[in-house]
């Protein structure tokens, strides 16, 4: 296989911060507190989220790029940062109006938002750090 046919993954790192509360509206306050502990604080808490967007494909024969990183950066800023940065995920976003804003769900929502804007022939994966020690990936391998 020639160099020009090999798949390469490119990554873009972004960050945003937000308030949230882990809360299941079908449960009473007692059950929410029991299951989610302090993450369910009715007055919210917050995180610095780090997002790594991974795009995989064969570099374009004319540009040598899998994807223009400026374009990936702009799409991520438009779809993710403008929606979620300095927001309350429970109160300020339509995406989490009826969806518990766990890191798992946030990663899937971000994937869907980006997937719609990135060439279908490229593979996409997102990794989301909620803290330095807790992170999730979607799709799972």
């Amino acid at each position, binding site marked *: 296989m020639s160099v020009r046919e090999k798949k390469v993954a490119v990554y873009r790192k972004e*960050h945003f*911060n*937000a*308030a*949230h509360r882990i809360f299941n509206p079908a449960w009473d306050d007692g059950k929410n507190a029991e299951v989610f502990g*302090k*993450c369910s*604080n009715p*007055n*919210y*808490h*917050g*995180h*610095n989220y780090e997002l790594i967007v991974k795009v995989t494909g064969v570099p374009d024969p004319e540009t040598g790029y899998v994807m223009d990183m400026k374009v990936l950066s702009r799409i991520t800023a438009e779809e993710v940062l403008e929606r979620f*940065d*300095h*927001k*309350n995920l429970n*109160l*300020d976003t339509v995406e989490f109006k009826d969806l518990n804003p766990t890191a798992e769900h946030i990663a899937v929502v971000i994937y869907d938002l980006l997937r719609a804007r990135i060439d279908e022939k490229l593979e996409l994966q997102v990794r989301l750090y909620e*803290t*330095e020690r807790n992170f999730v990936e979607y799709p799972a391998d």
Partner: protein
Amino acid sequence: MVYLTRLEHFNAAHKLYNPGWSREKNEEVFGKCANENWHGHNYDLYVTIKGDPDPDTGFLFDVKKLSQIIKDQVIEKVDHRNLNLEVDFLKGKMCSTENLAIGIWQQLVPHLPEEIKLHCIKLYETPRIYVEYFG
């Protein structure tokens, strides 16, 4: 003189909002940090003490005890909290990282033994923004 640092973490919601100003003025000065529905951060807290090592233990101070004091006096009060609404030592103050660092200093000093001097509170609001307070 030796300096010893203990690192702790917490996360919290807050907003930068001066209740004496109009909403427009708050948005003008604090931008998206003034979002009335809050936003939040993972904070990294570096507490540095200074002094001379004890000749018998070789320790400046038992770091397990230091960790417990920080947990009891600071982390318990701020972790997974809303800094504007739920933290007694920030009541009536602007919830900036600067004021939070000063408040943490004031929380810790009364609980440290007299021979141990607090040297610095270094508080990261994001991996790219931090403040230092030396008392």
